[in-house]
């Protein structure tokens, strides 16, 4: 409706297909009004640390990305005072235990494995969106 609308979700995802399906799932729940999609970690950091715009309410972060991986992005976010408390949910295909361990160690708020099955995927994404944007009380 207008450019002044606050950004609610930053989707960091290199796969256009996954991004499209994620956005569609959120839209179905009416959660995609303030969503921004970036395609790699560098772009994500630039978006979050460059401007003066208020931070989004949720970051959906993929792990395996070109240039800067998700774990490195998370590390940088937590090192910066502005984004230290920002809710970050890792949304990835990796079920590997070391990735899960590292994600939580670096301060991820959740770790969600993308289900292969589309219906489950859709359900997972909308559940995450609902929880973090509707139920959860984030720090101001």
């Amino acid at each position, binding site marked *: 409706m207008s450019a002044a609308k606050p950004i609610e979700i930053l989707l960091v995802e290199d*796969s256009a*297909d*996954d991004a499209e*399906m994620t956005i*569609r799932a959120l839209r179905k729940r009416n959660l995609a009004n303030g969503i921004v999609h970036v395609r790699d970690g560098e772009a994500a950091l630039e978006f979050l640390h460059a401007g003066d715009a208020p931070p989004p309410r949720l970051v959906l972060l993929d792990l395996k990305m070109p240039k800067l991986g998700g774990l490195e992005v998370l590390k940088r976010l937590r090192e910066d005072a502005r984004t230290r408390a920002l809710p970050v949910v890792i949304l990835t295909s990796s079920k*590997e235990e070391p990735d899960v361990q590292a994600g939580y160690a670096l301060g991820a708020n959740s770790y969600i494995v*993308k289900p*292969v*099955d589309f219906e489950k*995927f859709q359900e997972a994404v909308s559940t995450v969106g609902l929880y973090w944007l509707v139920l959860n009380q984030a720090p101001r």
Partner: protein
Amino acid sequence: MAPMRRIRRDAKTLLLLGLGVVLALGAFSARQFRRDRSAARWVDHTQAVLGALDDYRYALKAAESARRGYVLTGSASDADAHAAAMTALLDDARSLRRLTADNPAQNARAASLEAATRASLELSTRLLARRRAGDVVGATRMVARREVTVVTDRALAAERAMSEEERALLSERRARFERLSRQAEWSLAAGALAGCAGIALSLWLLLRDLGTYERLHRELERTKELLQIVLDNVRSSVYIIDLDGRMLFLNKECARTLGGTPESVAGRSVRDLFPAEQAAEVIANNLRIHAAGRAAEIEETVSSADGLRTYLSFKAPIAPLPAEGPALCGVSTDVTALKDHERRLEAANKELEAFSYSVSHDLRAPLRAIGGFSRIIAEDHAAGLDPEGRRLFGRIIANSERMGRLIDDLLAFSRLGRQELNRTDVDMTALAARAARQCADAEPARSVRLALGVLPPARGDAAMLFQVWTNLLSNAWKYTRPRADAAVEIGGAVEDGADVYWIKDNGVGFDPRHAGKLFGVFSRLHGADEFEGTGVGLALVRRVVERHDGRVRAHGAVGAGAEFRFTLPHGRNA
């Protein structure tokens, strides 16, 4: 060694027995001879008494004839002869009394003999005095007088009685002497005989023992020879090493790797044979094993004649040696090549796992896109498709879902190979019950009769073992679906030191000819339209069981149900 102890005991017994017999016989013979000698002395004594009696009789006669001669002739020589005879008579009588001091009866007779002698001496003195005074007639008459003859007869009678007694004693004592002599001879002969028998017996026993000893010695030599052959030909280092690192004993191979011969290396310390750091490690290992008091298998990397090599060493503490003290026996085998193979194999395996993981992983994203967009079309653009188009999209979606499951299972399978086992004590009864409940909850409309006994606890990775129960039980649930009276039995027992678990069902079973294919990845005995599944479940079961060093087997027949049994080593700690 029992035979050597017997030989020593035999020798000791024989020696003591022989000494005892010889001493006893010697003592007995000595006593016999002593008794015989004393009997001989008594014979001599009796003969001395008889001799004295003879002398007395002779002197009595001599005194009588000298007296008569003097009375008739009055010659001085007769007077002298008479005096000498009388002195001899008195001496004889006195010595007879002394000689018969031991025999009261004879002594009494000797006393009366002496008395008669003294009486005769007095009478003769008177008679000879009368003749010297010149009274030849009176003296001659006196000689013939009864008074004189009575005295002489009394003396003679006493002498005769004594003689008779002594002669009786003589023959008695002679007989005793003879008897004792014979006895002494016999005991000597018996002693000699016993000695000979003892010597023969000892010789026989010693020869027999010597035979045993020689046989044992030969056997020992043979064993030693065989042991040496084994030691010389074994391609491992065999040695005995003390706690200070000194090589007390070693075989040829051990000496070769240490760059010497058994003779040149024996007695040297690993401190001289290896660089300081390696020697210190070897000695520390040995001390640890000795302190634990238990044999152990360790890997040791040391510089040998073949270069830096890794050895698998089996070392066992042995009883302290008499001269060298506590020590270890070791067998070290060069496993360098084996370790290299193992490392290469491990690396290849890791690479393969990583490859299969990344392949499966990377396949998921496009698959999700295929399934996802197909569904989006089916949901949002269904109006633009005819029924056949919609049906075909349904097939695409179903297949992408199936492929998703295949990839997920493959990923789970590959992850299982890389994951470390987290071993704990596992309550298998609870685990099986939980898996069964999960199966029942998944199909609440069905009624499956479940018999669950008490299962032996296991030692292993609880999450992985739960996967085993889940896969086996979901199979049992799946393949009993056509049965109205579906029944599943879970049991377990301890058999031959292993924990055995089984799951039996009365489902559709399988052709035992294909039993071998059951556990392969993606290998199935049923079509996907008959029974769903990816063919990974049993492969996963086998992988988990084998990673626990166990075994899994399947028994079954078409239409007659299936039985899966798996064994886990009992209470294994690793």
